[in-house]
């Protein structure tokens, strides 16, 4: 037992997740089916994609509140560009128009994050403030693009990105898993990733160790905003429209998943794997409650409680050490 404790201590969330799954498998017959589990993964993959980036941002000691608005903005921008490029006047074939629209949206996401990084580095504006401003501005920009009505210029096959299946697995899940592998390698096996920990752990020591802290901050913010834009493309594909009111409040869900995964808001501490578990954990809880016919209102209350509980467990673990 004493030898088990450190192991248990370092994998509390994983263990709780397994117990939760066993419990749901027992009480909700439909839970443990391939179809339902894949559905859970698909539900979490769009927010999860952003959560991966957010993990990097929070480890670097920054925050990005604009990701929800970025999802809406990027979906609307993709829709509008697809429509504009595909009109007879410009005359791009549909696949090319879609591809160009997606690329521009991703680039816009990158630029938005880079802007927050620039403001942080050049003028000392905390990312909390600059991304709060972007949250409002991007939401307004999405409304401006769509003029308040959903845009629906997409060809039928576009639905594949957000709603299709490949080898029986929802396509967004592939994108999520690839992004997970990418960020995991970045954080654990590249010097850039190690520099992210150093900057979040002690920016001055990192700077005096000749690490370019400006590039690190700008890099993580730009990457995350770009992942949010990618998530926006997937979202627009799933609902087959560019809608300005989508993804409201996602930033808080995403941050919650990162924190449940054990990343410290103080910076310098956290793992991409933890976020993966946190994201799946939240997905399973929501799915389980839906299967058990728990009212949506209660679902929110439970979710709030979970965030507190997870942070408390993290605190106690750290104090125990």
């Amino acid at each position, binding site marked *: 037992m004493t030898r088990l404790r450190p192991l248990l201590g370092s994998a509390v969330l994983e263990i709780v997740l397994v117990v939760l799954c066993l419990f749901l498998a027992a009480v909700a017959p439909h839970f443990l089916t391939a179809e339902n589990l894949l559905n859970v993964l698909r539900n979490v993959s769009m927010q999860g994609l952003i959560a991966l980036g957010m993990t990097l941002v929070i480890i670097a000691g920054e925050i990005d509140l604009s990701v929800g608005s970025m999802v809406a903005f990027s979906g609307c921008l993709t829709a509008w560009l697809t429509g504009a490029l595909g009109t007879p006047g410009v005359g791009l074939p549909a696949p090319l128009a879609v591809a160009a629209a997606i690329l521009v949206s991703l680039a816009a996401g990158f630029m938005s994050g880079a802007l927050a990084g620039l403001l942080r580095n050049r003028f000392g504006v905390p990312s909390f403030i600059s991304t709060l401003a972007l949250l409002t501005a991007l939401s307004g920009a999405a409304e401006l693009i769509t003029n308040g009505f959903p845009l629906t210029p997409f060809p039928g096959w576009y639905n594949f990105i957000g709603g299709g299946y490949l080898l029986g697995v929802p396509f967004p899940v592939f994108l999520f898993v690839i992004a997970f592998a990418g960020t995991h390698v970045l954080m654990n096996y590249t*010097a850039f990733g190690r520099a992210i920990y150093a900057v979040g*752990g002690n920016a001055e*020591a990192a700077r005096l160790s000749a690490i*370019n802290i400006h590039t690190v901050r700008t890099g993580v913010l730009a990457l995350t905003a770009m992942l949010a834009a990618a998530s926006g493309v997937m979202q627009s594909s799933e609902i087959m429209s560019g809608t300005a009111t989508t993804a409201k409040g996602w930033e808080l869900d995403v941050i919650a998943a990162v924190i449940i995964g054990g990343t410290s808001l103080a910076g310098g501490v956290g793992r991409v794997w933890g976020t993966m578990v946190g994201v799946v954990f939240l997905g399973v809880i929501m799915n389980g409650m839906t299967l058990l016919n728990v009212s949506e209102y209660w679902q929110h209350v439970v979710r709030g409680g979970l965030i507190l509980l997870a942070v408390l467990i993290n605190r106690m673990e750290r104090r125990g050490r």
Partner: protein
Amino acid sequence: MNARRHTLETVALRKEYPGTVALRDVSLKCGGGEIRVLLGKNGAGKSTLVRLLGGAVQPTSGDILVDGNRVRFRSPGEAFREGIVTVHQELSLIPGLTVAENIFLGRLPRRRAGLIDWRTACSMADALLDELGLALDVRVPAGKLGVAQQQMIEIAKAMSHAPSVLMLDEPTSALAQRETDRLFTLLKRLAAKGVVLVYITHRLGEIHTIADAVTVLRNGALVGTIPIGEATPAAIVGMMFGETIGTERPPEPPPSGVPVMDVRGFTGRGAYSDISFTLHQGEILGIAGVLGAGRTELLRGLFGADPHEAGLVTIGGKTVFPSSPSQMKKLGVALAPEDRKAEGLVQILSTRVNINLADFWPPSLHWITTAGRERGVAMNYVRRMDIAVPTVDSAVSDLSGGNQQKVVIAKWLNTGPRVLLLDEPTRGVDIQAKRQVFDIVRGLSGQGISSIVVSSELEELMEVCHRILILKKGKMTGELFPHEATLENLISKCME
């Protein structure tokens, strides 16, 4: 004003910490009306004495007497109430609050309803500043004032407690000459009122202006008290450093004169100006000077850590204007900063990561790094430099000061430097680790790697350096070769 002369006395005051005696049975007497300067090198027990008198720590044995009455403090608050007030070297004002609020923090006058009576607070603060001869608006935030004025406010705050004993710990280290003069005028006026003034300084030049008598501590024990008339530089140095003047180990003669780094006209933000020197291959160059002479600022400027105004550095065949640590690292310059905990290492990360820290940038150097490779690098230095770690994967914050310093040096050796800038490399490091750090520096010198060492411990510089530059108020005032000079030469060149 009817001056009442206070007195302060200690009787066999002793403070032990596990393993060391910080203060050995010190008995001394200070009378009101005189200004007593307390001298001693780092670790002599000055700050322990001040902390004991101020109630911050409790004595192991011995007594403190104020106005002849035995007192015992369990907290600084109790010392305040007895009228013993300390002005610390670090400013403790809250920048966003007004001068008046800072002075009466925690004891602002109230109206009957319990609301703060701002008008009374401000007029009380005004009266206090008037008495001290300061013309300042008490309604401005303290953060808007210059350092000197803030120091004056600290003293005003201390005076608001109506102290019988006022202790000042290096109050002039941040002040310019004119401001120092004003402070001294103020202190003399206070002394005339019968307040006991205990004044700690590193600037020997000040004591003849301010002191009535000088008390010297060494290794925690009282060496003696002499009236200012007898306090010649030679007498003071003899008391501070003891009879064993002279280095224990004369350094080898300077290595062959191949220049490796050339500094020309280095000037930075009022901290130092027009510094020029040439560092040779394998040379260990010391920079000596009192606190506030600009030593740390100069090292940081050379490393590009802080911006400087003018001056070029030639190294590795390139002449540059240092502007960032990454630029200087590329040229082979490394800095072990003064504040090891806050600036040298990322405390929450492991020894392994910290040793690799300076190698993370630019990332393209090693596109893929692994924990195994990092561990290999770390283990290599841990073995070579005898760093005592539980495992290289445990947090660096668990290590002792000496081992942390070795990790900082290892971090830079990993980048293959030409020049190592070491800022107070032995601060907070035990004797044995100190030796090891210097052995490492000497070993590097043998391999042709040069070092610039800043240290407040002048004996250390005499022991390890081939050559020592003297910095005074930001200017280079001389140089000295330890193999042909004595510690006393160095001390009198630095201080006077």
